[in-house]
């Protein structure tokens, strides 16, 4: 696999085990730690669960420490969404490059490899990926739009990949991409959701093997 952009964050474990009278962290490191705690809370209870008090408790600090970094809940949520949408875009970019410059052979293999890349990213950063599926209604307007836009960009990645695949393999020119793309997006979503919810039953390898099997079956003449 090609080298991926640096999206790793400062170790979360180090921050989480700190307790109330932990040594003072420099503000940037503290900010990251608090955002990590907030992201965990989103994964458990949606954006509604992100309260200054809850973030403080999760991070093992007092509430004033949270207020040193963020004026209030809205500012914290905005910072969280800004950071995580940047992560999402880095993950998309990884998927978007799959099979580039590899010719027809690469294009044939691309769907399986793109799904494998995407699901590997889901596994690596589940808390970030979960933001694609968490309810947005309780977010402040601007923040909600920012995250909704980033969610929609995955569809554009799929649209571009589909166009490459269809053109290289010679799928019918009148195949309706406006229909194909939302259907593909829905299938990608269900795969990602299974990996998030039940990775033991649906490990990425099982889902990519299933796709490979389908493409294999569809490339054999009907008996």
């Amino acid at each position: 696999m090609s080298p991926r952009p640096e999206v790793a964050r400062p170790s979360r474990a180090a921050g989480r085990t700190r307790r109330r009278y932990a040594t003072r962290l420099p503000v940037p490191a503290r900010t990251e730690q608090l955002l990590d705690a907030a992201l965990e809370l989103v994964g458990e209870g949606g954006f509604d669960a992100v309260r200054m008090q809850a973030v403080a408790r999760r991070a093992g600090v007092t509430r004033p420490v949270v207020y040193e970094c963020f004026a209030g809940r809205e500012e914290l949520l905005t910072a969280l969404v800004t950071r995580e949408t940047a992560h999402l875009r880095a993950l998309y970019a990884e998927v978007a490059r799959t099979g580039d410059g590899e010719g027809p052979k690469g294009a044939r293999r691309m769907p399986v490899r793109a799904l494998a890349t995407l699901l590997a990213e889901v596994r690596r950063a589940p808390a970030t990926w979960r933001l694609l599926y968490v309810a947005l209604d309780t977010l402040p307007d601007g923040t909600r739009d920012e995250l909704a836009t980033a969610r929609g960009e995955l569809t554009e990645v799929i649209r571009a990949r589909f166009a490459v695949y269809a053109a290289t393999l010679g799928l019918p020119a009148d195949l309706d991409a406006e229909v194909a793309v939302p259907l593909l997006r829905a299938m990608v979503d269900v795969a990602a959701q299974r990996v998030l919810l039940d990775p033991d039953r649906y490990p990425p390898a099982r889902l990519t093997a299933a796709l490979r099997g389908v493409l294999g079956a569809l490339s054999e003449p009907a008996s």
Partner: protein
Amino acid sequence: MSDPVHGSAARRRLAPADRRDQLLDRALELVAESGAAAVTMQAVARAAGVARPVVYDFFADRAALLDALLAREETRALADVLSVAPEALTGTDLGDSVTRALDAFLTLVLRRPTTWRVLLAPSAALPTEVGTRIEQGREKIAGVIESSIVAVLGQRAAGLDTEVVALAVIAAGEAAARLVLAAPEQFPPARLTRFTRTLLGALPLPPGPAR
């Protein structure tokens, strides 16, 4: 707060089962118009032209009402799907079978658009049991799809992970229904079925997909 009730026609006595259905009908309309958050005991009472205590006679609270509503809609939708699926998912021509099944499905979606809109766009405002129930309905449908895959593909289904394929088929079917519900003029069912016919008519794909 005063609770004026107008319209003696709406207030006439209904048999309890009919009254319950009527309240759920009004609640469904509220969800369709303004989302699940718009469903309050007061709003349902007003829409049905009854006093609020009447609503409480049938439902302990808002969550119980929403749950009853979704239970009813999910039961109806599932019965619809299961009534057309076995017949639609037959034959050995893949393109033809999938296209007929999709056509049958979208027809019944458009027969109960509000029901499907609610079931396919679960909102955070809905109780979580509702999500569980929808998931159980999907599992029943998945079972039917799995056996159809084997029936339609025959030899070619050997080695396929039909459980996963069924999940993908359901996701695609739901996405198709969402398109039809969201923009019926832009995406009439015929456009969706033309897509499956074109795609599956192009089979077999060039050989040798990924290793």
